[in-house]
């Protein structure tokens, strides 16, 4: 307990936020993206409401391009913890055959992820969505409040955020507004891994190094997760010992070569790392201040 005092501080803060938000929402949901942050978020939700189960479902917006290993983990985890799982796919996008390889990361992410999320929130009428985003992930996130309001069209107005002094959160919504709540705002990537180690939280095995078939494309190592990757003549599939620092759509997520086969060695790898976890993500590099732009348009 004493050893990781800062983790206790972060955990207590997250539990407080979960309880405060849930009490003041009519129809909350928890965004679940299957990644390590979602795993921690789910663990914190279980703690916050224990001995009851979290009084909300978890929502996964499936772009149909996730790693197979993620989907298997998701289904097993939902079954084990007993929290209802809602999966939403943007059917219009599927009908138009939208994909990251044919349409590029920007179009794919917008239609399958951003539009898909908006559809799901509107369809089920969720007025509050918990998310695992952290302020250390990216520059515009660093500016976002714990309770972040979205207008009718789910857009974010960064210049007009509510002041949030102490731990007093104004949770009142105007008509048509919805709220994103980020209990892990003050966590860093390192904190997440320290917490996973301390609490022995299950994570998708893709985070751990293993021999996997990969191909190098535009400076990123992509894993050949299924035949849709469409290997070109000038590309060669190699088997390398790799792992992923973040997980998303497999053609947009770069692997890193690594020997870290357990959480402990991941921790020592991160402590000496020279690149940020998002460096493996195509989505952040689309344009300058790209994340802020996406969020103004309704990205989570």
């Amino acid at each position: 307990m004493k050893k990781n005092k800062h983790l206790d501080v972060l955990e207590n803060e997250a539990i407080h936020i979960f309880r405060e938000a849930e009490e003041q929402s009519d129809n909350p949901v928890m965004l679940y993206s299957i990644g390590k942050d979602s795993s921690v978020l789910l663990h914190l939700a279980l703690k916050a409401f224990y001995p009851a189960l979290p009084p909300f479902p978890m929502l996964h917006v499936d772009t149909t391009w996730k790693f197979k290993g993620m989907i298997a983990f998701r289904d097993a985890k939902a079954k084990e913890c007993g929290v209802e799982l809602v999966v939403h796919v943007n059917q219009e996008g599927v009908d138009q055959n939208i994909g990251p390889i044919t349409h590029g990361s920007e179009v794919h992410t917008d239609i399958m992820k951003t539009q898909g999320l908006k559809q799901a929130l509107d369809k089920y009428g969720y007025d509050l969505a918990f998310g695992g985003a952290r302020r250390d992930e990216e520059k515009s996130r660093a500016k976002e409040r714990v309770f972040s309001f979205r207008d009718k069209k789910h857009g974010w107005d960064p210049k007009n955020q509510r002041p949030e002094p102490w731990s007093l959160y104004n949770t009142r919504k105007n008509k048509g507004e919805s709220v994103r709540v980020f209990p892990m705002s003050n966590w860093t990537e390192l904190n997440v891994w320290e917490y996973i180690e301390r609490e022995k939280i299950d994570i998708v095995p893709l985070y751990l190094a293993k021999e996997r078939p990969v191909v190098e494309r535009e400076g990123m190592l992509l894993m050949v997760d299924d035949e849709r990757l469409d290997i070109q003549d000038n590309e060669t599939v190699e088997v390398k010992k790799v792992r992923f620092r973040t997980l998303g759509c497999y053609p947009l997520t770069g692997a890193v070569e690594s020997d870290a086969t357990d959480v402990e060695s991941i921790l020592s790898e991160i402590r000496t790392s020279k690149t940020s976890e998002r460096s493996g993500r195509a989505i952040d590099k689309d344009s300058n201040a790209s994340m802020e732009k996406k969020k103004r348009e309704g990205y989570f």
Partner: protein
Amino acid sequence: MQDILRFITCGSVDDGKSTLIGRMLYDRKMIFDDQVAELEVSSKKFGTTGENIDFALLVDGLAAEREQGITIDVAYRYFNTEKRKFIVADTPGHIQYTRNMATAASTADLAVILVDARQGILSQTKRHSYVVSMLGVKNVIIAINKMDLVDYSKDAFSKICEDYAKFSNALNFSTIEVVPVSALNGDNICSASSHMSWYKGESLLGYLETAEISTGEQKKQAFRMPVQMVSRPNLDFRGFAGTISSGDVAVGQNIVALPSGKASKIKSIVTYKNELQSASSGQAVTLTLEDEIDISRGDLISCEEDQCSIADLFRTKILWMSEQKMIAGRQYLFKSAVSEQVCTLEKPKYLIDIENLQHIAADNLNLNDIGVCELHLNHKCAYERYENNRNLGSFILIDRHTNQTVGMGMIEHSMRRSLNVQEQYISITRNQRSEQKSQTPCVVWMTGLSGAGKSTIADTLEQRLFGDDYHTIILDGDNVRHGLNKDLGFTEQDRAENIRRISEVSKLMMDAGLIVIVSFISPFRSERELAKDIIGQDSFIEVYIDTPLELAEERDVKGLYKKARAGEIPNFTGIGSPYENPENPDVRIQTATCNPDTAAGIILKYMRENKFTVR
């Protein structure tokens, strides 16, 4: 064991706050390679430092910030050294963003206040110092920046030290360290500078690594926990979840629930798959009790000895955070760690003049004003003085219509009035008085533009009720202003007081058993809601006399519109001041299409259907 130090950087615009943080992260290699590469690209595009890297771009992440080269909102950054972990909030220097700066300061353990060596102490330096001190931050580091631009002069440094010492005497800091730095060149940021051998103190980072984190105050205190939610997963379990505000709690300890004062004993302290024997300040837990006592969200569990105080009238210090000025007498939502309820604020006792810390008289609070006000709650709630407990002594104020957070405040102390003025017991009740008259007392509240026809309809309605042997009274806006309220004008504040008095009088008359007909322009929704709250929702009938402005102006029975159009009556409703339509009135009368008799008939029908009258 590593602890976390939360600190902010603040000070005037262009003192180099963002650059300082950027430099610190860069020098300590706490920025990843891909971020440095991106920074180099951005510096070329947006940079304000010529060929050099613009470190401010590391933290100014919003598009508008990069374009304008300023900081708008707080950026949080996280880093650690061998000694401890840090959460740093980089706050904006512009006066219009003081609310964002105060948000960050409210959770800080320490503040780094920057001063431009060429400029010396500016009014924003003073403002930020005051806000930091007011919010209870005890340790500050004054970083005198841009020393390179004054040739690393010891005299320039000493002069600023003296000036700051004079000003800060009146503030409540326990330690003040002063460091001469150049954020741009990295002097005295992470290590000693070779340019200033005359300086013998620590580097900025050196001070940050060793500063004391003052959380001790809350540990020594008695046990308090606001109840966030009641956990009832099944019939056998009833737990009260919350985060402990202060003190320790143990199984078997005697407690009381406040404000009810009901006592019990701690049966168990539940956390995830684990029961604890004791828990302390800062922990989020779920408590179960030996007895079935009524506790809900908004209550406080306190140790039995050294109980938490409760009150409903406080002296508070408020930082106003909205472009809409504070209106004394208007209702706002009060949210503290314990309670969320309606409150009203009195006219400020005084504002604080940041330049010289003098008190100045004022009628209201404008954006970024700091003032001392009395605050009334509708119901008593548990509290602590802010200086003793940040958690239970702080609150925010929310506008009931826009839902915006408009103010943040601190409880200085409760006021005696709430303890000494107790309600006198009276034997004959309102029910008995109304039974004697065989009627249900209520208030028919008519709102609408001047000249809408309120008084005429009120008069007709009263004649009809009187004819049916009901006991009634009319309170007419104009008449009341000749007598009871003749000291009030037409500012927003006076209008609020006007409504408060008329509502209290209506309530007294209801207690007397009467049916009260109020005919009052009452143009603001918040004031009508105040009336409804005072009178009681069940006894309040809101009647909207809906007359288009053009029609009322055309009638102009009293010739007031003409005068208002000529500019002779400022704040005249519909001309110089808005009328806010009721969104869901109980009765709506459109006078364009009906005469006073029909109108009275519609109201009587509503009263009959809702069992206010029987005849």
